[in-house]
């Protein structure tokens, strides 16, 4: 029993990380029907941006986590946002009216570009880099279940930001513009919505969330590498599809489902941890067979 509880706790933490990235996938898809495969790399560059910020801090600030940690978040998020905005402006906007396959392939290209750029230009990025120890150390122990404080921080940030985002989209003026653009870009334009602004804002929000995820990933796992974006991006993409691409709630729930399947299946299914990924994709396939729009998605309308 205690093992099950521990695995559930691990799954929730993994899910929280995936959720932060999945939100970026699902929002961009909701607005411009683009699967932004480079989004995982935005998460990765944010992590390196945070590390670079820390490296550039004066030595006395490095020793005080209360200053260094917020600055790392700022640094990481700024890098993520800048990369995402440049990516939108120069890679995706020129292809806005191109066939859907063109921006998709571009996204893959951007992904490879970002990964290689970090590998070549970031000092020593060829191998794993250790992350600074400015995060809260130690564990919270409830009964026999251990959760590290960084894990708890990750879950709180992830759920909190998802709730704020949901509220923002449902309540604010800009949120309404986003929903309108998602529903019908042409009519939205006639109603005075500036689609360029909405799209850039969508990319920025996705990048902020990925930035938070990037820093927390480094703190939670203690080291980062250039492959982290690809692997977690695939999980996040899967989470978005599972929950229904375009749905905020769906992406978050899909992410937690994936985290839980991974740890629980690794514990109890035949093959153990060696085959834990297999079960994630088995569930994905089953959901897509019986509910192609995902758990919370709406059946796709054919657009004029």
């Amino acid at each position, binding site marked *: 029993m*205690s*093992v099950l509880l*521990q*695995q559930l706790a*691990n*799954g929730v*933490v*993994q899910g929280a*990380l995936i959720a932060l990235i999945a939100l970026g996938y699902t929002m961009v898809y909701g607005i411009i029907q683009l699967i932004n495969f480079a989004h995982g790399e935005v998460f990765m560059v944010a992590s390196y941006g945070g590390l670079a910020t820390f490296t550039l801090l004066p030595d006395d600030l490095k020793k005080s986590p209360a200053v260094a940690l917020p600055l790392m978040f700022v640094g990481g998020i700024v890098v993520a946002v800048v990369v995402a905005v440049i990516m939108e402006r120069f890679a995706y906007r020129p292809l806005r009216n191109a066939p859907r396959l063109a921006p998709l392939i571009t996204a893959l290209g951007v992904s490879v570009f970002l990964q290689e750029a970090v590998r070549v230009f970031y000092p020593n990025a*060829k*191998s*794993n880099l*250790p992350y600074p120890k400015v995060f809260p150390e130690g*564990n919270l*122990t409830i009964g026999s279940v*251990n959760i*590290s404080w960084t894990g708890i921080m990750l879950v709180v940030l992830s759920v909190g930001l998802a709730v704020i985002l949901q509220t923002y989209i449902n309540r604010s003026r800009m949120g309404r513009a986003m929903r309108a653009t998602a529903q019908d870009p042409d009519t939205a334009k006639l109603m005075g919505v500036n689609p360029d602004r909405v799209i850039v804002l969508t990319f920025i929000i996705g990048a902020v969330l990925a930035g938070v995820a990037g820093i927390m*990933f480094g703190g*939670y*796992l*203690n*080291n980062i*590498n250039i*492959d*982290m974006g690809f*692997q977690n991006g695939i999980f996040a993409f899967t989470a978005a599809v599972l929950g229904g691409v375009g749905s905020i709630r769906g992406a978050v729930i899909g992410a937690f489902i994936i985290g839980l399947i*991974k*740890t629980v299946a*690794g*514990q109890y299914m035949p093959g*153990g*941890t*060696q085959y*834990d*990924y297999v079960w994630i994709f088995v569930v994905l396939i089953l959901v897509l067979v019986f509910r192609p729009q995902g758990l919370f998605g709406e059946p796709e309308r054919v657009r004029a």
Partner: protein
Amino acid sequence: MRKHSVKSAAIVGASLLVLAACGSNKTEGGGTTGGSCDTSKGTLTVGVVAPLSGNLSALGVGIKQSAELAVDEANKKCTVPGFKLAVSAQDDEANPAKGAQAATKLSTDPNVVGVVGTLNSSVAQTVQPILRDKKIPQVSPANTNPSLTRGNDFLTAPKRQFDNYFRVCTTDDLQGPYAANYLVEKAGKKKIAIITDGKTYGEGLAAELSKQVTKKGGTIVGSEKVGEKDTDFSGVIAKIKALGPEAVYYGGEYPVAGPLSKQMKDAGLDVPLMGGDGIYDGKFIELGGKEGDLATSVGAPTESLATAKAFVDAYKAKFGKEDYAAYGAFSYDAANAIIGGLAKTLEGGAAWDDSKRDAMLTNVGSYTGSGATGNVKFDQYGDSTNKVLTVYSVTSGKWKDVQTGEFTG
């Protein structure tokens, strides 16, 4: 720094090729390129295949630079009369497919006399046959999987696999049991959990360890696998923790082992993690290896060997720092075995051509010398006769040797 040295190595390499081209045509005496040595017959190349980029590059670069050191010294000492030696280092990215490309590239160059490499046993499996077809001797500084020399039935029916393949380090059928003896008898850990990365090296090593642990009265409480690109091991750790191990043995390399050790501790599983030569690197500690973690590695500690001192000093003088890593001394010895074999093959001023390759294989095989890792000599399978192993432990943030010896059963 590193980029610079690669670049300048490339420039040096390129200019050597130009000189080689001149050298083979001209008849007048050379002597302009190799200091005071006669290099009129051109340039011969010692290939290196190792991961120069990627996660394992710390080990790979140590291998490459140590081979360069050996070649440099040979050039200064005019070890091979009439020829200048050069190093051609190819990056295998620790990837068997890339290793095959690198080996193919080297094997099509008629001036390549031998290859130092590879780091990974899995890469060696694809490199061996390519070099064998061209009769190019391959001397590995780091492959510890026993089947590379003695086949899959290495214990019961050993059979030489490749007549061009040698290694200067000992093998996992000794390393695994040696680690097991230490864990069970010295450290008193009876319940061991195994985690592997599924690659040739880690699987083989863990299998050999498991057998010996059971033989010595310990138990293997569980065995799990992690992916090479995995980063979050909480699931595996929770599963293993429930089995109550007193130590965890990891079959694989430091990029996974370091974070794994830290996450074990974070998850409340504060037992030592032990691994083989693949985790014996400073990077392991940087990435999360904790106090009390253990590793075995091949050979005696480089710093403690009298024969190694000259190597360490020369390395420091040439590269400015001591980043020869776990296999530098072995790579130096491997390169010297090739150079020594070549010198014997070309004794009396013979020219190099493909007809010399058979003699070259024989001469590398029969090479003996006193190297940076002790006595270098190969047995009938191409394995090193030097079977010394060392157990290291992380003490005050550094690897410290705790026991050196040979596996005796």
